[in-house]
């Protein structure tokens, strides 16, 4: 057994690498910059975790999404790795100081982009040995990415003090424009690029155009009550998640809603109930999904047109991790395009906001948080006119992208082919169950739902305690 496979077995408990993993890891260990694009669920975390065990020094992972960071720390701890720390705004001043003092004792240091500006942190980093730097969710670096985080752009300046350290950029979805942005922002020198096909042959696509909201609801209720899950129903507002969950509950489905406004402890419980099979369906906003480790999700339903093709691919990609045939259905009406654009533009700075930002130093109170943060960044690097132009361009692109998605759903061409084409990829082999434009036999893809299993027996604490702990 070679060295890499040995670590894979001993530390991670797998017998063999998945496609692409080994090559990427070898390049990281060889000290080369790497850009790796792998669809969700294809073992991305292994790529930055494994080389750490074969190299001296700490791995520094920059991760823009706090919830994801938490999840990654937990996953490493579950593997028995104790030398993990997450440095972000959740830590108190004292906790941070404590971590900085002991920074050399950690193998995996997770940090948010905001922290890169912290001088004490940088000082502590400069005194330890760093094996390599990881830019996770690297698409957030690009303003063309669907999840643009202006704070992340600050990584460019920060990286200048680590010119000798190689960088590994990871993301699930990126168009060629985004890849270009990633490479230049991360100051990469002739990086090794690995782009895994975004195609997920086990997921069939279904686009359903309906007349109005009532028809949508009827279709969704019909589908969920007659076919089997587990599944996620994605919708756009908190209110709607609750409405769907309520309607489905009345029909005997074991379902819960999930959105960002819920208590953290309840969010965790809903996730776990879904993972353990206590729930068949989740009605959620796009807040749900990150850090869900469930292989057997069979259905993803969207009741709307998402605001970007990449985010749609990510949400759909949560199905069929186990490779078993699954289906992604999207319901839309003709007016949903405008709705999608409206949602996409919600936190988007208007011309007036930009003018305000350049006039006033204190815009946090007057503008939504995201808008203020984005503008504060651009104010530092661009003139007012340039910023106005920039956002006009981005707005235009956004509109084009949403229209493109609408066209993909509506025209007569294969959905899979078009989605791949958007990411500059050709479809090589068409799966048997491809999409609603090619051929789709729903009965062959998903099972009929078995009789409702929702049983409402009385709560009985003694019985429940017996289930939790042995006597």
């Amino acid at each position, binding site marked *: 057994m070679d060295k890499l496979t040995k670590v894979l077995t001993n530390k991670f408990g797998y017998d063999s690498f998945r496609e692409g993993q080994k090559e990427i890891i070898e390049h990281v260990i060889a000290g080369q910059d790497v850009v790796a694009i792998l669809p969700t669920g294809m073992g991305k975390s292994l790529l930055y975790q494994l080389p750490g065990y074969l190299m001296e020094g700490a791995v520094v992972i920059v991760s823009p999404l706090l919830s994801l960071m938490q999840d990654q720390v937990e996953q490493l701890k*579950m593997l028995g790795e104790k030398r993990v720390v997450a440095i972000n705004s959740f830590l108190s001043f004292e906790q941070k100081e404590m971590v900085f003092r002991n920074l050399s004792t950690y193998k995996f240091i997770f940090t948010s982009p905001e922290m890169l500006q912290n001088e004490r942190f940088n000082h502590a980093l400069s005194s330890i040995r760093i094996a390599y730097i990881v830019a996770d969710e690297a698409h957030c670096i690009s303003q063309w990415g669907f999840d643009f985080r202006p704070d992340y752009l600050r990584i460019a300046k920060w990286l200048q003090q680590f010119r000798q350290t190689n960088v590994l950029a990871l993301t699930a979805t990126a168009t060629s424009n985004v890849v270009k942005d990633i490479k230049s922002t991360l100051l990469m020198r002739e990086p090794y690029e690995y782009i895994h096909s975004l195609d997920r042959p086990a997921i069939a696509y279904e686009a359903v155009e309906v007349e109005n909201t009532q028809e949508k609801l009827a279709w969704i209720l019909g589908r969920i009550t007659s076919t089997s899950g587990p599944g996620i129903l994605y919708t756009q507002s908190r209110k709607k998640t609750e409405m769907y969950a309520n309607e489905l509950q009345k029909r005997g489905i074991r379902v819960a809603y999930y959105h960002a406004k819920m208590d953290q402890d309840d969010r965790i*419980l809903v996730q776990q109930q879904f993972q353990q099979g206590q729930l068949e369906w989740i009605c959620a906003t796009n807040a749900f999904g990150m850090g869900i480790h469930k292989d057997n999700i069979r259905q993803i339903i969207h009741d709307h047109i998402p605001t970007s093709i990449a985010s749609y691919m990510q949400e759909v990609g949560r199905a069929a991790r186990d490779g078993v045939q699954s289906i992604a259905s999207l319901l839309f009406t003709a007016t949903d395009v405008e709705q999608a654009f409206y949602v996409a533009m919600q936190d988007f700075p208007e011309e007036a906001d930009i003018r305000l930002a350049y006039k006033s130093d204190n815009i946090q109170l007057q503008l939504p948080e995201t808008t203020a943060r984005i503008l504060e960044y651009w104010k530092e690097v661009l003139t007012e006119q340039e910023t106005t132009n920039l956002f006009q361009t981005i707005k235009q692109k956004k509109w084009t992208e949403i229209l493109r998605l609408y066209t993909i759903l509506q025209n007569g061409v294969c959905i899979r082919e078009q989605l791949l084409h958007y990411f500059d990829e050709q479809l090589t082999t068409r799966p048997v169950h491809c999409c609603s434009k090619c051929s789709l036999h729903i009965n062959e893809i998903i099972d009929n739902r078995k009789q409702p299993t929702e049983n409402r027996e009385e709560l009985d*604490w003694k019985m429940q*305690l017996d*289930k*939790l*702990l*042995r006597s």
Partner: protein
Amino acid sequence: MYFQQLLLLIIHQFQGERSSTAPYYLLKGKKSGQTIQDVTYFNLHPYFCLYPKLAKETYDDEIVKLLTQNFIVMNESTISITEKGLHQIVSSRRPYYNGYKLRGKEFVFWGRMELIVQTLSQFQENEKKFVPVQKSNEIHQFVKEFLHQRDFQSSSFGTNFKHQLSDLLENPHLLEIHRNLFVYRLSGYKNSGLTWEQLATRYHMTVLDVKLLFIECLHILLNEITEEKYPDFHALTKNIYVQNPLTDSALKSSKLFEKGYSIEAIARIRFLKENTIEDHVIEIVSVDPNFPIQSFISDEQVQKVLQIAQERQTKKLKIIREGVPDLSYFQIRLALTKGEEVNG
């Protein structure tokens, strides 16, 4: 419904002498001189800081509901209970709370308990890798230490722990709903706890009501946990009771009083108004019965104030002062605070 009952109880106890925001600040645990002093004045210790996360809109909604049902009446400066409202509470169960001493920290105890049960449950099924329901690092550290000090992987520890837990939950002070909420919130191997929403649906209650019942359950249990009876659980109550109930500012003044400074001197040293320091005195007296007040007011004067308050059935400073025009408002407040201590 349950929350409404609680509000009625509190409003009743304010005796129509406070405005409609007073109960809100009480439940939130606002650390202002006024709120803290009211706790002692009106004997509201059980409800202080009972629900720090209470949203003003939620509170206002419930107040409106009480108004439309004619359980309470309100004007700009006061809120009070009606005959009809009074009728509502005499027939209902008196809840047990210990808000003043716990101040939301019962959830630290709960977090420890929850993680221990989850850990034991997972280990008993030999699934030692799991995602903890508790995310707080402090709780992780605490539980780790707690378990390592005990032989937690032995079957006898688990059995014993469960036995103690059953025994604790059998406590007659608990209602069946308390027990169910407690156990169904717990998570373990292949068994996740229920969300507040799910529990509320089961009981046809609001989420807020369910949470308040859950908090009551924790307060009752914590009251039962003594070192002799439940040594393991007692260890989980470490540092959850408030040690120093004073606000930071009052604490500073209190230290200067100990050194013998007068109100005027402290105000000068701290660049504060004398009024503020007087508020601190009230706050200090309400938590420390032994704090000497003779330099501010004589025993006879205290008695006189209390007598007037008793005769006229009020705690309104203005009315009381009519009987003792030579005393300041501060002295009257001091006397009333002292009086509550004697009675309470």
